């Protein structure tokens, strides 16, 4: 059985065809990073108009690369939320039209459920069994959530960020220091060159749910650190580097980033990773997790992967490959298979839901 997945919840217009919840027949992502790299630091493909431009060719490419036509599909799956309503609507409306024209079942998928299924799909492809209950940490530019997954399709929210998402904190700190968007991967590449204990951040203790995250206090601490120093010249040097070389290598960055700033980056990354893993460890213990899944764009972070591998979870910790960590439609199609089995189809009244929650 083949499902066409469509994802337009944020900046990426994506379509993919997946077979039997394990084989990726195609995976097409039209991303602002490749299209608009020249803007550096900007993400212009933001709203419905940009998705509208991309949706038809992206779906066509996904079908072509999969070597199949609409007639070969068992269903069309689309992200119904959370995300930007205008963006979601493009994918939903297009998916509805395809289903209406070809009499196919329509399946609505939660974007975060998708991130979890990216990992389940890859495990299935490798013939690895995933034991439940699963603790899922979904961390990206827009989300930082902890879910308990008792069994496939059953989610309970354990904790979430109260302010900034983890990926957002990375990108904002990078931008503050003159690095281009997306800054997370750059910080990750430079962090090993700094001392992760070089800068000590004192963060306020939070009241309330101990499984909730907070990153805005850390962000403010970095802002203060920068304000206390005269970094204007250093920051300008980095901005100038990007103007001449849109994709600097690690050596280029190291040449324009003094040790004190490298220490800051390393310490910042260490603090974010500690915050993510500390709450994930506590959650895994509370729910007696048999498997931990870490997914979403921040799951690409090498520092996080390394730290998670040596953290004492007492059960396997699974990450998606980088291509399936960031937003894609493979995960949307993958998450739709259990719903196809249960005949959990959406009606024509399926609507975009900005604040859709899982659980």
């Amino acid at each position: 059985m083949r499902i066409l997945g469509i994802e337009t919840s944020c900046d990426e217009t994506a379509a993919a065809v997946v077979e039997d919840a394990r084989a990726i027949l195609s995976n097409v992502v039209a991303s602002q990073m490749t299209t608009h790299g020249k803007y550096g630091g900007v993400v212009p493909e933001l709203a419905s108009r940009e998705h509208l431009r991309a949706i038809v060719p992206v779906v066509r490419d996904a079908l072509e690369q999969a070597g199949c036509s609409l007639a070969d599909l068992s269903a069309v799956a689309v992200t119904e939320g959370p995300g930007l309503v205008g963006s979601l609507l493009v994918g939903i409306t297009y998916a509805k039209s395809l289903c209406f024209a070809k009499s196919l079942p329509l399946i609505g998928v939660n974007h975060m459920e998708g991130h979890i299924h990216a990992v389940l799909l890859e495990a299935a492809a490798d013939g690895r069994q995933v034991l439940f209950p699963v603790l899922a940490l979904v961390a990206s530019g827009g989300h930082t959530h902890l879910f308990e997954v008792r069994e496939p399709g059953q989610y309970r929210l354990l904790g979430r960020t109260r302010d900034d998402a983890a990926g957002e904190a990375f990108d904002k700190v990078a931008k503050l220091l003159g690095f281009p968007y997306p800054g997370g991967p750059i910080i990750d590449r430079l962090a090993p060159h700094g001392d992760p204990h070089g800068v000590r951040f004192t963060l306020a203790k939070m009241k309330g749910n101990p499984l909730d995250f907070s990153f805005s206090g850390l962000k403010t601490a970095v802002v203060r650190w920068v304000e206390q120093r005269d970094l204007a010249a250093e920051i300008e040097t980095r901005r100038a580097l990007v103007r001449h070389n849109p994709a600097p290598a690690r050596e280029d960055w190291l040449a324009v980033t003094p040790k004190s700033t490298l220490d800051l980056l390393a310490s910042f990354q260490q603090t974010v990773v500690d915050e993510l893993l500390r709450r994930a460890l506590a959650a895994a213990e509370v729910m007696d997790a048999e498997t931990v899944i870490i997914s979403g764009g921040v799951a690409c972070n090498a520092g996080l992967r390394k730290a998670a591998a040596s953290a004492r979870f007492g059960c396997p910790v699974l990450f998606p490959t980088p291509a399936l960590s960031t937003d894609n439609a493979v995960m949307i199609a993958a998450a739709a298979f259990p719903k196809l089995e249960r005949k959990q189809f959406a009606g024509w009244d399926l609507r975009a839901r900005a604040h859709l929650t899982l659980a």
Partner: protein
Amino acid sequence: MLRFETASEAETIALGEKLARQVFPAHGVVLLTGGLGAGKTTLVKGIVRERAPSFREEVSSPTYTLIHEYGDPVTVYHVDLYRLDHERELATLGLEELLDRGALLVVEWPEKFPRIWPVRRVDVRIERGPGDQRSVTVLESQAL
């Protein structure tokens, strides 16, 4: 012009509630300026608590999602222009349309596009003091 001082995150949230109850119009534009980490989203938590009490989840930063909606029907749109640099991108958000919906439009980083805002609006400026202290200045334009 009104000036307030808050000493903690909780006080900043409470101030957001108070402004939403006593100062802000039923619908219209509130421009929220203040640097990274000033507490803009924290203030919005209070605004949403007052104007969209049915929303029980956490109000978080819309930097990535650009627009968050609160209330059913929507009474508060929380917009963040941090990631936008060109007016062309702004045009795709359809802010004028949101303005017609009789809700409060709260905008973070409005200073990136200084020329596009209506004259009738409320300007709120948040500044960081030491620790968790914040000073908040509210400036109402003409009669609203």
